[in-house]
């Protein structure tokens, strides 16, 4: 937990503080003092949506405010797939390992990504920029192997394309993708990026 805060940049720390203030206001508004435990699920949803994940710091805070033991909160937070205990990355990479993509060499693409990012499946890079996950079929098997970064699909992938694509997202601001991983709105409302 402390490590997480230590690793934060000043801007992130500021945002974290802001989020806690909003969480505090949410609990003040919605939680009934006579039965605070009942509000746990709603409060965890709020935490997930505010921070993008549920940190130990947030669970400790919710525990104190709602007088729910941290063990119960941890149990609930790990039970539901909707909740994440790790910070989500700015850019979420999914590599297809469905049948067609697998046969077409998806594994080689995956290995290259692991090498470039220095992380394994299900992990997030230490700078919080990329996450790497496996997916099963993106519905375009004819164009295999396929990978996806955020909402952008890259088709007929070869390992050599990996560094080029990653570079785009590393300097993300110039490519219409905000730091939050969401697409910036363009005037035309068109998709800003194509492979």
């Amino acid at each position, binding site marked *: 937990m402390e490590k997480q805060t230590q690793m934060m940049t000043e801007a992130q720390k500021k945002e974290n503080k802001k989020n806690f203030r909003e969480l505090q206001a949410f609990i003040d508004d919605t939680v009934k003092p006579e039965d605070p435990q009942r509000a746990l699920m709603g409060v965890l949803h709020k935490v997930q949506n505010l921070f993008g994940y549920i940190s*130990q710091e947030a*669970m*400790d805070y919710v525990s104190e405010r709602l007088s729910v*033991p*941290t*063990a*119960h909160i*941890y149990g609930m937070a*790990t039970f539901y797939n909707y909740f994440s205990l790790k910070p989500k990355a700015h850019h979420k990479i999914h590599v297809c390992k469905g049948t067609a993509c697998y046969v077409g060499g998806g594994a080689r693409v995956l290995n290259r990504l692991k090498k470039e990012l220095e992380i394994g499946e299900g992990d997030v890079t230490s700078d919080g920029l990329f996450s790497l996950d496996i997916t099963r079929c993106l519905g375009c098997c004819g164009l295999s192997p396929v990978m996806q970064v955020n909402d952008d699909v890259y088709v007929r992938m070869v390992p050599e394309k990996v560094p080029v694509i990653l570079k785009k997202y590393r300097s993300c601001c110039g490519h219409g993708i905000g730091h939050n991983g969401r697409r910036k709105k363009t005037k035309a409302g068109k998709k800003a990026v194509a492979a």
Partner: protein
Amino acid sequence: MSKQITMTIDGVAVSVPDDYTIMQAADSAGIHIPRLCYHSKLSQFGACRICVVDVEGMKNYAPACSTQVKDGMILQTHSAGIRKARKVLIELLLNNHPRDCQVCGKSGECTLQEMAESFGVKSDEFSFEGERKTFETDRSSVAVRRDSEKCILCGKCVRVCSEIQGANVLTFSHRGFRANVVPAYNLGLGESVCTNCGQCINVCPTGALLEHDNTEEVWHAIHDPNKVVMVQIAPAVRVAIGEGFGNEPGKDMTYETVTALRMLGFDIVFDTQFSADLTIIEEGHEFIRRLTQKGKLPMITSCSPGWIKFCETFHPEFLENISTCKSPQQMMGAVIKTYYADKSGIYPAKIYSVSIMPCTAKKFEAARPEMNSSGYQDVDAVLTTRELIKMIKEAGIDFNRLKKSEFDHPLGESSGAAPIFGATGGVMEAALRTVYEVVTGKELAQIDFTDVRGLEGIREAVIPVNEIEVRVAVTYGLANVHKLLTEIEQGKRQYHFIEIMTCPGGCIGGGGQPYPAGEAEALDTSVYEKRAQGLYGIDERKVIRKSHLNPDITKIYQEFLKEPLGKVSHKLLHTHYHARHPKGVPARIKDTVNLFKAK
């Protein structure tokens, strides 16, 4: 208001209240339905399905633990279909369970093992080659070790920790194949808010939860020619150890245990009851000082290490109220390596000090950094009653045929006030016997304080000592403790002196005591009552029944300590505790947990 209904279980007509479950009805009729997740003292769970029964007119088999009885209900507890269903359930559990019974610490006392055998599960009838869950064993705690691979997710540990102990250390995390029982944030037990009480061990049906085994290092010290191995045994051990050798709970086997300890190779055998008397002198005088010199009140006892950690973690605002006295175990440890070392001329570094305790939290207490006042670790190793039984069996000692022998001097003599430390209310009673006589200078007319005895969750009494009406309270079980402390904070309760014990029934129900044999189950009233009777019996048989009249206590003050709360006592016998992180949030306040009806 419930009314009586009549039903038929296995052809036997049974009359029970209509709010009973099938399980309760069968139990009251003396019919034992197999169970893994059900426990009569804990909330309903309905997870294991081993207790399914065949109810006439019902489409599916019904779980007995969570199906309410109905008038005219007819059911079978072991029809052909039920037997088959149970066998399959056990097979499924075994498929995801390590097959290492021979080397498992719970072997012979494991419910799962017992069921597999009694249901006739044969290894050649089911073979499973698929993936099994893999978890690392949690050895972070010096008191409790958790092997998640052996866990069958019955949830009894989670419930006892929350409902009886109010500590909520454990939870189910994740789900499906990854489901596990862990403390918050997947911390090790040693880093968590765990109080080390060991009640989870007592209710665990498999070997998933066990005490941290220290027998090997004790054997090592015994075999080491350069060590002088000294041992002390706690009051609650002597009335429970016999259970490991087929005796009734409560049978006093003090002096057989002394013989056994010598045969095992311990050089000197002392009695924790001596230091219990010493605790009463120090704690009694501390109480008198607080009472007469406007010190912090209520004063709370400090003998139970589970309670100490609970207070540090959950209620640090009460740390000033805790008596500064160390527990009898630690007083003995400190005295052995100073007073006795001097007296006998044994160099303290050569002394290996072992204690036999009914308790897992004592392992944690002995390892605390506060407990080095002799210049060495005061107590080197702590064994539970169960571990000592194991050592005696390993050595091939026929415990039931042993001759009696006496403790060594000068730390082996005790008064009748000392054995009752092992039962809830005992420390209070022992302290009152001394406090009354020291303050008033008069002899007590009635030595038995029966108001503080018994097994009710929270007990109170008012004792007139000179002009002061001393209000005392006694409680056990950390959920009750939390309730009591909260109500004190709210101003609803006011006391001068409180005795707090972590475990149900006091030390006799400790996390290191033998697993109940035969019909008895964990947290069983009848077992606790018999063990308590055993201790009160020892008290009654003693000629001297007040700590301040113990001649060896007088002697140690003359020769070494000089005066209660004096300079030497302060250095060796007293300590302070500090607030801990992570700070825990205890359970919501419920009613007082009364596992046992007041008699």
